[in-house]
């Protein structure tokens, strides 16, 4: 019966084609997802969201600051992953394998991204340029092996307890706050200080959470972090403290009129989310938790934009 056989083959053909398309989409989707996560491109997107939040908090007009911060974030983190590819093999073998496979391409992309960031920041004037160059200095100081040879007693910042996280948090807070201000020539107000302090505390938490998953690797290479020095429960308690401190800062700023109430509420939503994430520390998969922690700003952004969309 030729008709039947044709029909059957059509069905099989259609199913086969669909299967292949699904297979291809899955494969490409998985690859794109891996590239996004492993290359730190997602961090760049989150950083851009952070600058956007800072701009909303400070009521600044649109400017290229989010683009510059996105490019710098991508450049610095990608370079860091390329530099630490060997040590990451212990804590994150999949990411380490991805970085090792695309090491040259990632380094070139990171270099181009940083070059673009520097060039765009020139348009923001000398302060914007200085703020953009700051992570570049850290790029060299943070991971370069010649620093100890220049100053024998100079330990890599990465290895000193609290200093490592504070340096990273300070760099983040400075970049996120100062860059949009510099691009728009805005005045430095009490709100600027609040936003700076907010990002300093948040970035500290964001830096320490992934350290819980890296305890063994960090201990192996002599890097002192909170979980390495005091254990996971103590780290959890410390980060609760930082979360509550941030909450207090936001509440005080709102009550003092430095921050509008609806903005404080949005930040509060983000902090509530962070408390939940901190509570799960050491109790669920660390990688997922680190990713969840970095997504706090997406929650804040949603809390900021959501009501506007509803209106």
């Amino acid at each position, binding site marked *: 019966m030729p008709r039947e056989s044709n029909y059957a083959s059509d069905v099989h053909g259609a199913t086969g084609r669909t299967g292949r398309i699904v297979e291809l989409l899955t494969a490409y989707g998985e690859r794109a997802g891996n590239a996004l996560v492993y290359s730190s491109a997602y961090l760049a997107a989150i950083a851009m969201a952070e600058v956007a939040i800072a701009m909303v908090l400070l009521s600044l007009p649109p400017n290229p600051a989010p683009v510059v911060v996105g490019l710098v974030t991508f450049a610095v983190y990608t370079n860091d992953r390329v530099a630490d590819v060997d040590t990451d093999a212990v804590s994150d073998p999949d990411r380490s394998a991805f970085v090792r496979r695309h090491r040259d391409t990632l*380094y*070139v992309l*990171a*270099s*181009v991204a*940083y*070059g*673009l960031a*520097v*060039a*765009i920041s*020139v*348009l923001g*004037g*000398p302060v914007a*340029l200085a703020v953009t160059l700051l992570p570049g200095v850290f790029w*060299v100081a943070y991971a370069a092996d*010649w620093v100890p040879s220049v100053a024998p007693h100079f330990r890599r910042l990465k290895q000193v307890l609290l200093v490592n996280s504070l340096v990273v948090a300070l760099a983040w807070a400075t970049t996120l706050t100062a860059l949009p201000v510099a691009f728009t020539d805005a005045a430095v107000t009490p709100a600027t200080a609040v936003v700076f302090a907010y990002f300093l505390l948040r970035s500290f938490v964001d830096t320490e959470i992934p350290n819980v998953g890296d305890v063994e690797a960090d201990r192996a290479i002599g890097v002192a972090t909170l979980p390495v020095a005091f254990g996971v429960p103590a780290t959890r308690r410390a980060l609760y403290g930082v979360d509550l401190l941030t909450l207090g800062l936001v509440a005080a700023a709102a009550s003092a009129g430095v921050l509008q109430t609806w903005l404080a509420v949005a930040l509060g939503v983000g902090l509530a989310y962070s408390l939940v994430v901190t509570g799960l520390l050491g109790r669920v998969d660390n990688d997922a938790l680190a990713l969840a922690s970095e997504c706090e700003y997406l929650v804040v952004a949603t809390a900021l934009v959501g009501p506007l969309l509803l209106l």
Partner: protein
Amino acid sequence: MLPPGTLTAVMLLTVVVGTTAALLAWRERQEPGAVPLTVMLAGQVWWSVFFVLEHRAVTLAGKVFYSDIQWLGVVVIPVAWLLFALEYTGRDHYVRPRYVALLSVVPAITVALTATDPYHDLLYLDTGLVTEAGRTVLHRTGGPWYWVITAYTYLLGLLGSIPLLGLVRSDSLPFRGQSLGLLVGTLAPWASNVLFLAGAVPVPSLDPTPVFFAVSGVAYLGAITRFRLLGTSPSANHRARRLVFERMREGAVVVDRHDYVVDMNEQAAEILDVSPGDALGNPAAEVIPRYEHLPEEGRASRHLTLGEGLQSRQYDATVTAVADFHGRSLGGVISFHDVSDHLQRQQRLEVLNRVLRHNIRTETNLIYGNADLMDAENGHVEAVKEGAMRIEAISDKARDVIDIFERGRQSGRSLALRAVLQECIEAVREEHPSVAVDFEFVRNDDCADGAEIAVSPVLSSVLKNVVENAVEHNDAADPLVGVRATCVDEAVEIRVADNGPGISDHERAALERGNETPLEHGSGLGLWLIAWGTEMADGDLTIDDREGGGTVVTVRVPRVVPEE
């Protein structure tokens, strides 16, 4: 005329490319030249960034401030460029802190003068704002120090280009590509700077040099990625060549085209008993004995004896001419090879040989002469006489061997092959009339020029022995020997075939091994003489079995230029 937006865009592109190239170079910081290249690119980026800021500033004070800051990048570039060129081409012994400090004196003074500019007129005579093509730009008239730093920049740029120019002539494509990329990258901004200084740019007060650093950045990036700059570095080349020159066992003296000594290695200084410091720059005739007797090129005909009495040493002096790309003479290298030990061994051998042969001949003649007087049966007397003749034959062979060694030392001599072969064949025909000897001299396309075929003089003894062996040891009922000479390319092949008993395997094995043992040795000196002589004539010897019995000995030697 570039619109303001386009100029800024071009400058920002310069910054992107420069920063990217600097970070890529920084990644290769373990490679020679990478750190200075990074510094140079950082200097370019610095200059470009503050050029944009100067361009965008609206007040005179703002423009002056950014213009002054640019100097930090400007003065770094030539120093870093020279250091890069030195390190990259393997001359890193010049890259020392004290030299870097010395090179940085003029740039440091420039930066200091920039910082104190309002208090003197050394760097700028005049500063003001002018409107050119509807744009307000900073106009500054250079003072005396401005021209000093300009000249200094060009000087270092030129000095850095010299070693890299050497690579442009390199045989290796990657090195040529690298250095061309680097030269283009360097020449583009400097050419634009020359045009700016000459006032040949559309906006006279606007220095377009940083714009052309975009070209530099692209060229350097191209060199890094396309030609694997820093991944494939020629720096080892220079050092390795120097090491070979310094560590070679022969003494070597380099002379220029005017016969002045320009370089020598330690061995040469020791051989000639001079100190390099005193010898360099002096006429070669004052440093090298018998210099005027050395040939233009090639080995000197006489050994050079240096030193007195028992301490004297003998040297083979060889001149190698050095020419430039166009074949013009640049001078030469004279190398001294110590042959004292070799000559000493040869002298001892000659003395031993002469004494032995003389004594053997004398004693053999004595035995031969007295054999007839012996009271013995005639057969035994003949045996004694034949034995004595064999001893004498060995003695003659030994003489032939010495003769070969002697001829081998006489370079430039030659013999006509046809005459040599005819002489050998006539001699054996006369001595062994029962053996049929065929001779064929094939003149094919390879030697159709009609000229005489000449070979090394050592071939005389070699061929004589090959033909004699084929005839003397031929015990066939109908003894035959065929001699055939054929030209093959630049060589000549002499094939001697016989129908005799052949050459034993242990004799062939001894020849192949190159030495004899008490248990495995040849029957005499004949085969050794053939093998050594062929080797000395740069030829090949093959011994094969002949189809139907017998041996085929083939001697293949290069043809030499006939002696005039």
